[in-house]
């Protein structure tokens, strides 16, 4: 995914965050979302290392290393911020006070299980940070990820194959191809990006998709169903 696609995805997430939301933007791709929240509206960003408010990257030469974000980058606060210690910060998260958190992911399952902390490789050094707390704590969990893994397989799966971060916690997934809601009835496509067609999306996605929210009749995509079923079976093996 090139930089323009990353920015386009960040803009779509920013568009869907209502003014007045308390939001935690995870490290990496989700951090970009902050650049696209309109300056004239009020949003409250939460960073797990103990700051709530709004900020931008510190200007070169103006870095204060006591003033960093969760990615450990120096930031400069806008008026209205608050500091707090780590237990309070994770209390905000775990206590259900955040409206939305935006996270990256290795894999998401059709039930909304999230895998984003560990590949499970025997020689990998695990590092979880605040991922498990964010996954279960925020009212809504948005995931930003590439639709396909490097090996070309769908990152949206019937079951995650990597170690889980949280069970049934993902509300919505943004990829470069589509925006998909995880619902009790299944994975519902709410947006097709650019030239993506329902047929193509279903073909490359490892789980059955519901296009009814876009007014696309099930038969339009159903021609691909057998292939998808086969793909799912492959992934489950």
């Amino acid at each position, binding site marked *: 995914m090139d930089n323009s696609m990353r920015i386009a995805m960040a803009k779509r997430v920013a568009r869907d965050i209502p003014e007045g939301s308390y939001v935690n933007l995870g490290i990496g791709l989700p951090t970009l979302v902050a650049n696209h929240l309109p300056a004239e509206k009020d949003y409250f960003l939460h960073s797990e290392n103990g*700051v709530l408010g709004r900020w931008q990257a510190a200007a070169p030469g103006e870095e204060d290393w*006591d003033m*960093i974000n969760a990615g*450990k980058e120096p930031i400069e606060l806008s008026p209205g911020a608050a500091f707090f210690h780590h237990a309070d*910060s994770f*209390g905000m998260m775990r206590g259900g006070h955040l409206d939305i958190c935006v996270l990256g992911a290795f894999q998401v399952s059709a039930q909304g299980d999230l895998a984003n902390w560990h590949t499970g490789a025997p020689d990998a050094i695990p590092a979880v940070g605040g991922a*498990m707390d964010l996954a279960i704590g925020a009212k809504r969990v948005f995931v930003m990820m590439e639709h396909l893994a490097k090996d070309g397989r769908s990152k949206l799966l019937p079951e995650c194959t990597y170690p889980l971060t949280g069970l049934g916690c993902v509300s919505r997934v943004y990829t470069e191809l589509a925006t998909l809601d995880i619902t009790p009835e299944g994975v519902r496509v709410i947006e097709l990006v650019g030239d993506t067609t329902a047929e193509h999306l279903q073909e490359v996605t490892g789980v059955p998709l519901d296009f009814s929210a876009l007014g696309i009749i099930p038969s339009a995509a159903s021609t691909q169903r057998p292939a998808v079923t086969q793909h799912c079976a492959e992934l489950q093996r």
Partner: protein
Amino acid sequence: MINKLCADAQAALSGIKDGATIAVGGFGGAGMPDELIDALIEQGARDLTLVSNNAGQGDSGLAALLKAGQVRRILCSYPRMTGSHVFESLYRAGKIELEIVPQGNLAERLRAAGCGIAGFYTPTGFGTLLAEGKETRLIDGRQCVLELPIHVDYALIKAQTADRWGNLTFRKTARNFGPVMAMAATNTIASIEQFCELGELDPETVVTPGIYVKHLVLRKASANLLNQAG
């Protein structure tokens, strides 16, 4: 008269014995009590259990403590980061034990230790590798994991200003784990930038009250000495 300010870091750390559990504040470099860590390396206590969010970067600070072979076991949330080569080589060589703790559990288990809470149930980590072997319980329709407090013998933290009773203020996001580690520890040693007279700190701005603080050490580089050790 009580004055918690010590002549130097060695005086503050002299009681640390081999086998102690030590919490070290900081999130990345912010709030990292570098001078206290250097003094701990010099002090030489070994077989330590370290509780800290990260496992050191580069070759100084926590990385130097690890490199000195003083740490047997580490509890942390995020050991792998840019420049964590000292930890990585010790871990791969089987020379250090690692317990990965979700960051919120780390903070809350420290807080619980400080508050006399013998354990708590949280949804964090349920159904994951990090909850394996732990007691679980369905509460209000939500699956939860029993987590136990982390009591520590010493907390080494970085604060901003203190008076001689050990009341502390912090600076920006350098606050992070400092207050909860101070609560969890039998002995808290705070590295401070500024020492002030009793009454100079507005009680409304005190973040960690002196009841949680045993010793204060004024940072050497500090040019903000308001009142010398008594």
